[in-house]
């Protein structure tokens, strides 16, 4: 038999002034199953809570209803009070007679009547509450970091330095990502590689970090604290243990003149190559799509000349499996080419290049060793036109959003150019200058005032070639939209930042959501910026939205600290409000008939398939099972279930109906 106690709070005058609390007390006393009904001025105060604690002890209550403020306000308080007195906290419910009654109605019998109804509903519900216990799941204290750019590097180091194991997976032959390609970084102009490469080396040397380069995540299963990951280690063609990185093979390789990805096509590499000198690991890979041996079946020169005998032409992809407790996604961004802009002639004129290509031209380790030479004839350009928003903020042809970093890197490019070519003229066509950030505005002003970069407010309509010179048709909207024609030797397009080509497939692999621009979407745009809506998966860097380096690193450390926080416990305990599938005695086993509507409805992929087998192991039926580690308790499956085999703890059918019938 249920023994329910009802505790009516006056909340000073807040409730009592509109609702006749005495009346509420009397009325509740009449409800079957209610053994105690009292009121007090401030239930949430210590004496108030003591009333409850004592009552639970003395009257052996099986359920408590506190008629007071919103449960969103004090439910935790009163549940704690119950727990103190040895009553399962989930047997305590609140009737919201303040926010939903006394504050929104005038003093009247109606208000009181409503209050009584609310209490009765709660009582009927709480009668059917049952003891729930926080769900405990173990935690594997090892993290998977996907992507070896600055975000992935930072996150890995932070987690590893906190004493946890990290598996870092990078698709390219080396870690470093886009940052390794950059020349200098704004607003400080310190050399990108000088600050990045030490971190890369740290990653290689940190005993807690297992590095898989030239590898990709094949699949991820499981749930927070208990993921299983399969990693495809693509065949390098080289035994990394034996290889000393002497580089003989890369120099002698016979398949040459392959446009280098790292140098954005401005330089060349061989089929056997290390993407760049500071690569980590500094071990070559064989590009099988270009290697003579794989194409024609002969050569094997590298194999012959390798002093360490490390070349393995017959090597095959390996699958590595690992258990991890958390995942950090740091897959970074892609640069949108500019070929969708026929009017700018990218791809048609060799001297129209993207921002990233300019980075390589300006980089000391680049194809021109840091000398600004134009691709067509290697001549030093006397006039360079930089076009901002070449793709960004262009819903018609490009992308609707602002890529955020272009204003700054364009200013940087113009500045670098002026530093390297003193007599050169630099024009920047811009729409707005978005320089929000520490020392950013100052940086742009410096470009304009000290380095005399000529900023023109307006967009370029088209770029064409007139006897060997690029003619830029622009406009200055600050001069009454007067058209300008500038003859340039080099045109640099501030190309947009877009999501990785395969962002979607990755997101689906990891069961995380992404937005219409294919950037991964965080759990809450403001309050949960590094969490994904799938528990245990975190995000860092430009795979979530365009970001510059400082922001990326900050977010990476944020994600890392979330992971570390997760790893600080041996097991996770979660609110026990989860769905579960009913089971019956044989021969029914479960009223679930395995339609798996729930599976398709569940936003968290918490529904698993469970096979029920007889003793001899033959399959009797396949039913749904809720993974309570993953379930967030929304109850969508419950409403959808045809056979009503799924129910939601804390909001079960009977509880809801009971509440309803009490109205």
């Amino acid at each position, binding site marked *: 038999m249920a023994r329910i106690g009802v505790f009516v709070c006056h909340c000073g005058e807040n409730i009592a002034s509109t609702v006749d609390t005495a009346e509420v007390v009397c009325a509740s006393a009449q409800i079957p199953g209610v053994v105690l009904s009292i009121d007090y001025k401030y239930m949430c105060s210590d004496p108030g809570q003591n009333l409850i604690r004592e009552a639970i002890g003395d009257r052996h209550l099986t359920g408590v209803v506190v008629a007071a403020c*919103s449960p969103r306000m004090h439910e935790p308080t009163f549940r704690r009070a119950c727990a103190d007195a040895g009553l399962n906290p989930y047997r305590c419910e609140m009737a919201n007679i303040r926010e939903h009654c006394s504050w929104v109605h005038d003093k009247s019998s109606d208000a009181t009547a409503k209050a009584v109804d609310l209490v009765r509903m709660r009582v009927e519900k709480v009668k059917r509450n*049952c003891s729930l216990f926080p769900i405990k799941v173990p935690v594997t204290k090892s993290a998977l970091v996907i992507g070896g750019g600055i975000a992935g590097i930072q996150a890995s180091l932070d987690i590893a330095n906190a004493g946890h194991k990290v598996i870092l997976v990078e698709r390219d032959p080396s870690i470093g990502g886009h940052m390794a390609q950059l020349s200098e970084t704004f607003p400080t102009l310190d050399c990108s590689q000088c600050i990045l490469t030490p971190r890369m080396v740290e990653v290689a040397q940190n005993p807690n970090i297992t590095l898989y380069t030239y590898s990709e995540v094949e699949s991820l299963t499981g749930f927070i604290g208990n993921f299983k990951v399969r990693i495809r280690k693509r065949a390098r063609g080289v035994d990394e243990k034996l290889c000393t990185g002497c580089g003989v093979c890369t120099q002698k390789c016979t398949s040459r003149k392959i446009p280098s990805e790292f140098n954005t096509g401005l330089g060349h590499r061989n089929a056997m190559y290390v993407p760049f000198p500071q690569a980590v690991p500094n071990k070559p890979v064989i590009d099988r799509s270009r290697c003579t041996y794989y194409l024609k079946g002969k050569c094997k020169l590298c194999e012959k000349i390798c002093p360490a005998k490390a070349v393995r032409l017959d090597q095959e992809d390996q699958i590595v499996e690992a258990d991890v407790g958390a995942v950090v996604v740091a897959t970074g961004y892609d640069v949108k080419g500019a070929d969708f802009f026929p009017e700018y002639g990218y791809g048609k004129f060799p001297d129209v290049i993207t921002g990233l290509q300019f980075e390589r031209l300006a980089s000391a380790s680049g194809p021109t060793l840091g000398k600004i030479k134009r691709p067509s004839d290697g001549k030093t350009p006397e006039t360079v036109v930089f076009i901002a928003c070449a793709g960004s903020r262009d819903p018609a042809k490009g992308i609707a959003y602002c890529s955020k970093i272009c204003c700054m890197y364009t200013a940087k490019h113009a500045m670098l150019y002026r530093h390297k070519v003193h007599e050169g003229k630099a024009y920047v066509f811009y729409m707005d200058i978005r320089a929000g950030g520490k020392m950013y505005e100052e940086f742009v002003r410096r470009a304009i005032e000290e380095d005399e970069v000529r900023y023109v407010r307006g967009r370029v309509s088209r770029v064409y070639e007139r006897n060997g010179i690029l003619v830029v048709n622009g406009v200055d909207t600050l001069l009454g939209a007067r058209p300008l024609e500038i003859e340039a030797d080099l045109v640099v397009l501030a190309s947009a930042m877009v999501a990785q080509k395969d962002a979607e497939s990755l997101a689906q692999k990891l069961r995380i959501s992404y937005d219409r621009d294919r950037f991964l979407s965080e759990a809450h745009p403001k309050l949960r910026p590094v969490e994904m809506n799938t528990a245990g998966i975190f995000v860092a860097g430009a795979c979530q939205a365009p970001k510059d380096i400082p922001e990326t690193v900050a977010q990476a450390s944020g994600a890392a600290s979330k992971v570390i926080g997760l790893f600080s416990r041996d097991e996770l305990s979660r609110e026990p409000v989860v769905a579960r599938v009913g089971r019956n005695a044989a021969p029914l086993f479960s009223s679930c008939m395995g339609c798996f509507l729930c599976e398709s409805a569940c936003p968290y992929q918490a529904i698993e398939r469970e096979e029920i087998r007889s003793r001899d192991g033959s399959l009797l039926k396949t039913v749904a099972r809720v993974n309570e580690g993953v379930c967030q308790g929304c*109850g969508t499956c419950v409403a959808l279930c045809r056979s009503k085999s799924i129910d939601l703890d804390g909001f079960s059918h*009977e509880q809801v109906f009971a509440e309803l019938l009490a109205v």
Partner: protein
Amino acid sequence: MPSFEPRIIAFVCNWCTYAGADLTGTSRIKYAPNVRIVRLPCTGRIDFMVLLQALGQGADGVMVSGCHPGDCHYTSGNYHARRRWILFRRLLDFLGVDVRRTCFSWVSAAEGAKWAEVVNEFVASVRVLGPHDDFPKRLGNCGNEWLLAADKANSVGPLAAPAMSVAASDARKTMRGVHSQSVQVEP
């Protein structure tokens, strides 16, 4: 008939509309006292049965309100709710219930004023429709059965009434069984 005061039951999600209604309170915006709110984790949790029961037991109107599209705390529950709602209205229409007795709205946690508006408008419109009595007779009281079966299973308090199929009540019983086992995982 001005004397008539409709009884309306609202099913709201915990994260948006319930919080929104709280805000209505904290900002002391007054509205009609005719509504009784049933709090659920998400509009996705609301199934036909509950709504039918509400109308079945003689509620004059039923409201469902949750997060705006795209804001669902559980990412997609409200979309499921919306889809099901469209069907539900058809069903009601088929059953001969005036669909004007139902109201679906998006009220976010920040829209305290809107909640008051929605309630007042709906109450007013239902007041015009007059009391809702014919339907309950026809539909009967499906909810009771759920409950009583379950209660029988758990020997919860009074409210004695006809028992329903044993199978279902078994379902409940064994459900509890599994339930308690799986929760005893404390160290």
